[in-house]
């Protein structure tokens, strides 16, 4: 660990808190269960008498639904019910949606993308349900399809949602679902001060994060209570009950208990309330039996949602001396047939689009546009990878234009740690981040100066280096109404600790970090701490895992809860030991006087005494200090509510959109094969300022995973639709995810630990960040290698080779 990191650590570690676990390579709390095959995902869970549901999905991307004949399916042995829109219409508030009301649970009279839910079959087993679904006869009348933003914006374009367009209450205008802007400084002429303006249009790709576990749930309705228990593979158990209660007319939030099973990945697409969850609740109510609905992989591809492709027309203005003076951007998001999180993706990525730079004049114009494709939504990075793909290429283009090294240009325009806390141009509150060192370290680790300028390797490959940067939000109040989490930390008579948190575990390990923070606050060994996650009957309120908020917000809440419990333990120990509780320290499973470690007692004994609370051990209540009278509760409560975060101003698009921001830089060296167009990523280096590292192993895992996910999206992945809106490559055979053999093992990982003064342990967000700059850095490296500017993702051989050919670089 560097000196700087050490220094960071000391700044926040409060004097009396143990530092035994935070910062250590503690094994993942769930790890041994998962690697030994003892995880329990939705599909592993069996309930007595359970039914299984399967959807009938639209064959066409845009059509009127004239008739749905369910009779043959209903006649199948083992089929319980077959429902169409009419069967649920009076039980749901429609249209519904996360930010815009543009979805139906089952299509009523129109379908707007191929794969949309039209009917649902519920049967004794899944095969029967699937076979019966094949027998549902849907009569369609085809309508003209729009699949691209350009088509969708034409004057006479077919409308994806004519009802919303016609509704005077609704903002939908033609196919434009939402329009926004970010206005900073001289936004009317943001490039006025520029000596040089560089402009280019970039197109990003539609992708799926393809979590290993598909979406799925079990709904179990109890007719006696009128309540339903929903075990769902989700990232936001508490918000899910809120969201579902808004759609389901007969259910209040209190009627929907959401419980988390093990979740095999989420990456953002397990945030929306989905039709399968809504239908399962209603089907369980109707049949009075548990209903399981797990999507299959092909359904995941056509209807599981993914990252929105965007067209970004950008202009950057710089002075001859290398000051960035302005940014002017038109952002068009192809949101698909429903916007889901698309609006938040658009406004927050435009708000954060300036990245880790000082850019005094900016004008962003954003449009979220409907097309007849699968809806898009939140995906790791949440719009930042798209805008970063544009911004970081514009920056390297501008650097070349003015004859300056691209890292130097970045350094010159980055904020200085000593100026923080500060407001960025777009209104972010930046605290204690050292972007300068991130850039310099990354440059050094990747051997920038040696590679820059491009070269030919001995085996004839074209080599180059490129960079991208990170300024990633942690949290997003405008998307959730506030940014908070509650936590409860309780102790039993043996001194074992349980953390109750609304934070979901989706494989990323947030609970492990939370347990470490709690273990240190209470001074107990890590293996004495358990976590209960996402059970709305048991865990206190919170918003779930997304936007890198879990460890920041949920972790700080849990640390506060642990502090409350620690205060109680100290009070009891102080009373027993007849010392001032303030002189006590909790560590190594003991409470002892900090200056006199011999004077102390074991925590399990302490817990037992406190839990039983008998006068024989503690003296009469009259003899005890005030706080130990009337029963000693070994429950600590904590809440963390960001006071810094702001709603984005709807007029200017400015504001402190998130609680905190993680800065960083990433560089990539590539070899481009002039014979095949294949790109070999030969080296990756990343330096981020992630605040105090709670668990280096988990941070490295997130960094490696995010970079590889980013490389997959940058090199291989894309949804390919034909003109009729049919997905051409919707299977694991045809949609190419990177394998371990395709990507490097990323080991050049440097984490700066400048603590965030507002969080419990100085932590900042980590999980999404490294994905953000990856596509941009890759494209910059390929430019350095070939002199060809790739403005479209992915940089797959079938796009690269033709470009090499055209540039006269192709060889055989």
């Amino acid at each position, binding site marked *: 660990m560097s000196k700087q990191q050490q220094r960071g650590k000391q700044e926040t570690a409060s004097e009396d808190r143990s530092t035994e676990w935070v910062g250590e390579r503690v094994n993942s709390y769930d790890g041994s269960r998962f690697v030994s095959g003892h995880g329990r995902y939705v599909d592993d869970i069996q309930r007595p008498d359970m039914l299984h549901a399967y959807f009938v999905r639209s064959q066409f991307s845009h059509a009127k639904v004239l008739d749905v004949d369910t009779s043959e399916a209903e006649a199948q042995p083992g089929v319980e019910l077959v429902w169409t829109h009419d069967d649920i219409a009076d039980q749901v508030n429609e249209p519904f949606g996360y930010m815009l009301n543009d979805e139906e649970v089952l299509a009523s009279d129109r379908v707007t993308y191929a794969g949309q839910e039209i009917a649902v079959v519920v049967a004794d087993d899944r*095969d029967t349900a699937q076979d019966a679904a094949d027998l549902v006869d849907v009569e369609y009348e085809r309508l003209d399809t729009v699949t691209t933003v350009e088509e969708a914006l034409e004057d006479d374009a077919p409308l994806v949602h004519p009802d919303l367009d016609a509704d005077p209450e609704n903002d939908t205008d033609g196919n434009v679902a939402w329009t926004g802007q970010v206005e900073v400084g001289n936004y009317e002429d943001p490039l006025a001060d520029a000596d040089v303006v560089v402009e280019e249009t970039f197109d990003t790709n539609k992708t799926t994060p393809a979590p290993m576990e598909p979406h799925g749930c079990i709904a179990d309705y109890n007719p006696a209570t009128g309540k339903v228990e929903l075990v769902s593979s989700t990232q936001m158990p508490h918000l899910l009950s809120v969201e579902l209660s808004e759609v389901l007319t007969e259910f209040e939030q209190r009627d929907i208990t959401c419980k988390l099973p093990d979740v095999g990945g989420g990456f953002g697409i397990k945030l929306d309330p989905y039709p399968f969850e809504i239908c399962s609740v209603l089907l369980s109510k109707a049949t009075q039996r548990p209903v399981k609905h797990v999507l299959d992989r*092909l359904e995941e591809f056509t209807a599981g949602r993914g990252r929105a492709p965007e067209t970004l027309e950008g202009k950057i203005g710089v002075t001859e001396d290398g000051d960035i003076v302005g940014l002017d951007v038109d952002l068009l998001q192809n949101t698909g047939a429903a916007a889901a999180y698309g609006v938040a993706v658009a406004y927050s990525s435009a708000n954060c689009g300036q990245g880790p730079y000082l850019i005094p004049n900016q004008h962003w114009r954003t449009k979220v546009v409907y097309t007849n494709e699968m809806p898009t939504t939140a995906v790791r990075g949440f719009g930042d990878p798209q805008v970063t793909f544009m911004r970081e290429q514009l920056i390297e283009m501008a650097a070349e234009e003015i004859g300056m090294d691209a890292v130097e240009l970045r350094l010159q325009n980055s904020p200085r740690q000593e100026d923080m806390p500060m407001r960025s141009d777009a209104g972010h509150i930046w605290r204690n981040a050292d972007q300068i060192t991130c850039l310099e370290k990354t440059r050094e680790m990747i051997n920038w100066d040696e590679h820059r300028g491009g070269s030919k390797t001995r085996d004839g490959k074209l080599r180059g280096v490129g960079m991208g940067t990170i300024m990633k939000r942690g949290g997003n109040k405008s998307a959730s109404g506030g940014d908070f989490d509650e936590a409860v930390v309780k102790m039993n008579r043996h001194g074992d600790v349980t953390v109750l948190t609304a934070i979901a575990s989706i494989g990323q390990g947030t609970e492990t970090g939370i347990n470490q923070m709690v273990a240190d606050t209470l001074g107990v060994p890590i293996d004495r701490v358990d976590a209960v996650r996402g059970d709305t009957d048991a865990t206190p309120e919170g918003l779930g895992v997304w936007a890198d908020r879990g460890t920041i917000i949920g972790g700080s809440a849990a640390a506060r809860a642990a502090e409350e419990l620690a205060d109680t333990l100290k009070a009891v120990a102080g009373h027993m030991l007849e010392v001032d509780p303030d002189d006590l320290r909790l560590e190594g499973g003991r409470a002892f006087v900090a200056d006199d470690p011999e004077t102390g007692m074991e925590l399990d004994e302490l817990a037992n005494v406190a839990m039983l609370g008998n006068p024989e051990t503690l003296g009469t209540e009259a003899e005890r200090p005030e706080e130990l009278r009337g029963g000693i509760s070994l429950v600590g409560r904590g809440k963390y509510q960001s006071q810094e975060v702001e709603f984005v101003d709807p007029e200017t698009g400015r504001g402190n959109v998130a609680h905190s921001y993680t800065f960083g830089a990433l560089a990539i060296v590539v070899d481009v094969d002039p*014979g*095949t*167009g*294949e790109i070999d990523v030969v080296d990756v280096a990343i330096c981020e300022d992630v605040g105090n590292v709670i668990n280096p192993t988990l941070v490295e895992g997130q960094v490696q995973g995010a970079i590889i996910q980013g490389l997959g999206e940058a090199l*291989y992945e894309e949804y*390919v639709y034909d003109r009729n809106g049919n997905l*051409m*490559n919707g*299977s694991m*055979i*045809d949609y*190419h*995810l*990177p*394998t371990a*053999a*395709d990507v490097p093992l990323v080991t050049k990982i440097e984490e700066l630990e400048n603590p965030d003064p507002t969080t419990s342990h100085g932590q900042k967000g980590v999980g999404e960040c490294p994905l953000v700059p990856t596509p941009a850095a890759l494209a910059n490296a390929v430019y350095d290698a070939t002199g060809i500017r790739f403005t479209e993702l992915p940089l*797959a*051989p*079938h796009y690269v*080779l*033709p470009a090499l*050919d055209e540039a006269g670089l*192709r*060889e*055989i």
Partner: protein
Amino acid sequence: MLIPVAPQWETDVQGLKYANPETVEEACTLLRDHGEDAAILSGGQSLLPMLRQRVGSYDKVIDINGLPDLEYVRETDGEIRIGCLSRHVDVASSSVVEEHCPILADVAAEIGDVQVRNRGTFCGAVAHADPSGDPPVVATLLDATIVARNADEKRTLSGSSFYHGFYETDLSKDELVTEVRFPVLSAGEGAGFEKYEPTEGAYPVATVGAYLSLADDGRIENATLVTGALEAGPTPMDDAAEVLEDREPTDDVLTEAAEQLGEDTMPVDDFEGSAAFKTNISKKLAKDALQTALDRAENER
């Protein structure tokens, strides 16, 4: 382990009738009686994905994994013989193959991923005739001998004329491939295989196999070029091969043949790339495959 049962339909797996015969005779009897609507299960790496995706018109599965003595890779009478229960990994790691026909190892070692190679059979891939399959390309290239059995007889089929487009071969529905034989390449002969797969483990988008034999004076005597995945199955590229015949194997000559091959391919535009892209990449693959073939032919001298 599989429990051997009599040749009758025993279990009912997901609506499919399943049998696992103990002898080749039993298997062939089952095929005779049910070949029209039964699928052979060897490695299952193609069959199971099809069943899961509910494509294919079978209602019976004949599992041949219990048949005795069919797992071997050996050299007999100037031929490499691969039994129908040998897996891709067996071919990839065989010393006989390495010594006498290394192209087979090149092919087998790059099929799918480790799991696919541990289960999938080389003969199964030859028989299955997936248009993107790799073993069919090399079976065509080297004119393998395909040994097929039915209830009445055993016959041998020629690899160079075995394939007829999408999943179409000379096999009849009642036949079992028990063995595939490849020639031992002798001094002055060499073969190379190259493929482009979008990611590791994915099905290839373009493959090229090249075979060369050199005359004593070092000129190219015979040449064969076969593509795969670009069209409906293995496709011999005779005009490109002709470019090579009787020529000095210079870099320019190999390039000329590779260019010719590319021009003669007839791929289609799809999500894996445009026809022009596939044409261009096949040129590169052809060049590299020819270079390997040449190096091997020269080293064997």
